[in-house]
């Protein structure tokens, strides 16, 4: 295959290579179709763009810094920049997407917002924009995640959202997503579903990637200012469903000299039976409305994942990631719970930044790389660690 001929973006049928599409029951079709027909014209409308940019600037606090982490760089003997998505209002990249989708929901005339959440960051980001715009908000969250991300549950409640526990299956992100889809089926007219990652039926993966692409747009501009070139050697991010990674990769997809590294959660180890390393353990299939790669049995039943980080505890990846993986454009690597925790500790002590456990998975891969010394790396620090303090306290006996 001629490498330059590969299209890494969505095609007119809603696919990324072999992946994507809209595998949904008829009950979801009218809403998804309404979105499909309107999302590009709404997003590309200059008035929408202006409002989106203004909110990102004045409300979210963008642009986020590109921080030259000098002590971390010295530790590894190379040059590392951190894209500080943790400094966004609400503490993670998730809000880039919820701002975009709430504006879009308003344009579609929706009155009620639903969302799923794993770590609670997307739930908080959704509850936040609902408070900002005065819309009703219901967030589905796995029962286990409600326990391990208690501060975010409290934040959502304070913001006026109703938090509904998902009690089926593994009681984590996958099950919360199922419940949100069921809610949408049962509320077919007035409700918009703000999916929190680049997953779900077309047009969600493409739409969420577009909203998150502000991350790589800023990286290019900032890197050019700092180094004279907008292209680093590596961009790195963690992957749950893959939205911060897709935002980080988006404007580099056709710059083939830039290596894209995506860190999946290996949990207790890829062979432990308690893992969420989708590209290693998964096969092609359909989950949550799109054809992608997912962890499943021979019989097509979805396998329950495990990760210490609630945001990566998901048995699939977005279809665009499946495409980047299959074409070899992206390198997908697995990072264990312990490796991520050590990386969180290291960053905290070297740079005074407590990262989210999710983001620490991307940082942890630095340990496994070898450097000449003159590389430039950008790591997406997708979120801050406030929500994870209890997990850190338990793990490090603080």
């Amino acid at each position, binding site marked *: 295959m001629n490498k330059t001929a590969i299209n890494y973006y969505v095609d007119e049928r809603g696919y990324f290579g072999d992946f994507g599409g809209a*595998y949904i*029951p008829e009950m979801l*079709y009218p*809403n998804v179709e309404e979105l499909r027909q309107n999302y590009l014209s709404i997003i590309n409308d200059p008035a929408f763009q202006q409002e989106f940019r203004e909110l990102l600037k004045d409300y979210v606090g963008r642009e986020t810094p590109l921080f030259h982490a000098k002590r971390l760089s010295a530790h590894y003997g190379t040059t590392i920049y951190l894209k500080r998505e943790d400094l966004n209002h609400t503490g993670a990249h998730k809000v880039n997407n919820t701002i975009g989708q709430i504006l879009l929901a308003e344009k579609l005339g929706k009155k009620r917002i639903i969302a799923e959440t794993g770590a609670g960051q997307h739930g908080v980001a959704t509850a936040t924009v609902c408070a900002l715009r005065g819309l009703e908000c219901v967030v589905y969250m796995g029962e286990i995640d409600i326990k391990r991300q208690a501060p975010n549950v409290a934040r959502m409640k304070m913001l006026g959202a109703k938090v509904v526990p998902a009690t089926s299956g593994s009681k984590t992100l996958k099950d919360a997503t199922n419940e949100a889809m*069921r809610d949408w089926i049962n509320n077919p007219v007035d409700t918009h579903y703000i999916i929190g990652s680049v997953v779900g039926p077309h047009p969600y993966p493409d739409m969420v990637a577009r909203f998150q692409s502000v991350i790589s747009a800023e990286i290019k501009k900032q890197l050019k200012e700092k180094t004279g070139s907008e292209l680093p050697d590596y961009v790195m991010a963690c992957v749950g469903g893959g939205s911060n990674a897709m935002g980080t990769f988006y404007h580099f997809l056709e710059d083939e000299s830039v290596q894209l590294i995506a860190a999946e959660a290996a949990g207790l180890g890829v062979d432990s039976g308690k893992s969420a390393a989708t590209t290693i353990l998964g096969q092609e299939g*359909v*989950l949550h409305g799109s054809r992608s790669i997912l962890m499943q049995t021979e*019989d097509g039943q979805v396998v329950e994942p495990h990760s210490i980080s609630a945001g990566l505890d998901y048995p699939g990846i977005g279809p665009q990631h499946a495409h980047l993986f299959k074409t070899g454009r992206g390198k997908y690597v697995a990072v264990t719970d312990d490796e991520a925790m050590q990386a969180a500790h290291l960053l905290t002590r070297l740079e005074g930044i407590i990262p989210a456990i999710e983001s620490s998975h991307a940082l942890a891969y630095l340990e496994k790389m070898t450097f000449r010394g003159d590389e430039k790396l950008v790591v997406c620090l997708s979120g801050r660690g406030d929500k994870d303090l209890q997990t850190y306290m338990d793990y490090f006996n603080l």
Partner: protein
Amino acid sequence: MNNRLIELFKNKNKDLLSVYFTAGYPQLTDTLVIAKALEEAGADFLEIGFPYSDPVADGPTIQHSSHVALENGMSLKVLFKQLENLRRQISVPIILMGYVNPVLQYGVEKFCADAARVGVDGVIVPDLPMYEYEELYREHFENNNLSNIFLITPQSSDERIRKIDELSSGFIYALSSSSTTGNKLAVEASQTEKYFERLKSLKLNNPLMIGFGINDKNSFQKACSSANGAIIGSAFVKTLSSKVEGAKIKQFVASIIE
């Protein structure tokens, strides 16, 4: 071999009762026991659900039956084995219903061939997109004389319903409201009436069966007054306790149709 479903609708076009249950629930080997009891009780045809780990279109009852069936070891392989002798025991039309991922992993072509071989007449895969059916799988269904049944809701456009009518054989599965399975109908009667009038005015080629939320004689009869029949799922599955009793199944069906 004729398609039993199409034959059935030729011979009977009103008050048809179809009952859904999940294969392998409550016990792994109950599949044919339940089917037999339902046929004897007077159900016109049956929908056998093959379970999936993430049934997004289902409410709590079928989520539960699917979960238990999977724990019991149900899979498409096991189901087709159980159905080997189907046609020695049961003569009513049989439809398999489930989600697309298990079918994809099994192989769509092989799935259609095995379904036809054991005597299945139709398939409902709610999350199989229409375009994909048309482009990739239609030939496998048609080569095996299997009906592919599509769902419609009050929010489905006329244009889309016409397209579904064109692609359907057997019947069209009309939801009286957009809903997961087992929900009480919360829509206003006038809304539902408008929808059924719209369906009538479309003069569809295929018969209509109404499903989701039908749970007793009253809702069954109401549905039958606007369509060729109705489908009961969750309300039946709910009556199944750990030990299947033919008498109780007969009693349930009688409470609907008598």
